[in-house]
């Protein structure tokens, strides 16, 4: 399995292909429905985002509460489709990739190709296992959103597969071989 050290460089982004299994290590940021809505409001108001999107990855996840003695709770991917309305703008601002599960809109796919980004999927239902790959977690914005707050995660060998690559190959396409 290919190992990648984050941030996700342009070289990595161009080389990854749909269907490839990858282990990610480094920093990723969590954001799902409510956090995306807030980021959109910040951008509309001309305000800065809580973190610099350049070469970064957003993980669509709302983790559970962290049990005592553990670094992080269960943290499985949520369906990416709901974030489609926000994603093209974030990609155009430098976001390098997203981790989720499920289909993306044509607008997102075009934005991925246009910006040479990558859409990864993690295995849904394996949240408890995925949470163990989080080595450090810190809430950096929108704390009132609880599970939906933006967190900065340091992950080690976080398992994902490439769903849609910078060349437009789509793992979910009916004719994908």
């Amino acid at each position, binding site marked *: 399995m290919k190992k990648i050290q984050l941030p996700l460089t342009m070289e990595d982004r161009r080389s990854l292909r749909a269907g490839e299994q990858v282990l990610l290590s480094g920093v990723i940021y969590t954001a799902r429905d409510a956090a995306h809505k807030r980021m959109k409001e910040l951008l509309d108001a001309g305000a800065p985002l809580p973190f610099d999107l350049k070469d970064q990855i957003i993980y669509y996840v709302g983790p*559970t509460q962290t049990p005592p003695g553990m670094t992080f709770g269960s943290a499985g991917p949520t*369906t990416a489709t709901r974030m489609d309305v926000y994603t093209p703008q974030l990609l155009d601002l430098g976001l390098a990739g997203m981790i989720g*599960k*499920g289909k993306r809109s044509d607008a997102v796919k075009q934005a991925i190709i246009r910006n040479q980004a990558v859409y990864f*999927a993690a295995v849904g239902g394996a949240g408890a296992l995925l949470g163990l790959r989080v080595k450090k977690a810190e809430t950096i914005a929108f704390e009132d959103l*609880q599970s939906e707050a933006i967190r900065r995660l340091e992950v080690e060998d976080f398992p994902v597969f490439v769903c849609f690559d910078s060349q437009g190959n789509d793992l979910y396409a*009916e004719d994908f071989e």
Partner: protein
Amino acid sequence: MAVVWLTIGQDVHFTGGSLKAAVNKGVEEAYQGSYLRNSVVSDPVFERKNTLTNTPAVIYTEIVEGDQVVIECAAKGFGSENCSRIKMCKPAEGVEGVRDFILETVKLAGPNACPPMVVGVGVGGTMDYAAYLAKRALVRPLDSENENEQYRQLERECLEQINQLNIGPMGLKGRTTALKVNIEWFPTHIAGMPVAVNINCHVTRHKKVVL
């Protein structure tokens, strides 16, 4: 979101407080005590503020004969809930109409519903009751068989056809797109044939206890 069914024998009398409050307290304690995620917001459209307790639960009660209380609980995920659909089919559409709608719903859900999925179907009743039956169908055990021969056959046929859609686990292709199709049915109006399809992910968390 927690969905709780209480099937209450008519000889049972609850004392010492509100039944609804007791259910919600149980849900809160279960979620906090097990460090599960608080996934409920106070208002669906405007405020959308996390209630921090995972309550309120969706609670259904049914009064039956006897002196038992059956509690069933499902922790329903919404990636799959969002893939659920309802159609007021015309009687003329027949069994083909039901089958086509189930298959179409699964196809549209695709990788979004965390396949291999469990498919709950409610047929008949009214619009709302068909949806209720579809949710009930999701908590029927995966190794159960429909008591009605024709519906049992339809469940099998639908499962077979769903597993030929080549969606596969996590949408990565393959023969296992659904684990089970459960159909619950109820008499309906001469003019209608409501069909509701409630999708669940492969985890399908649910539990039943009898008091």
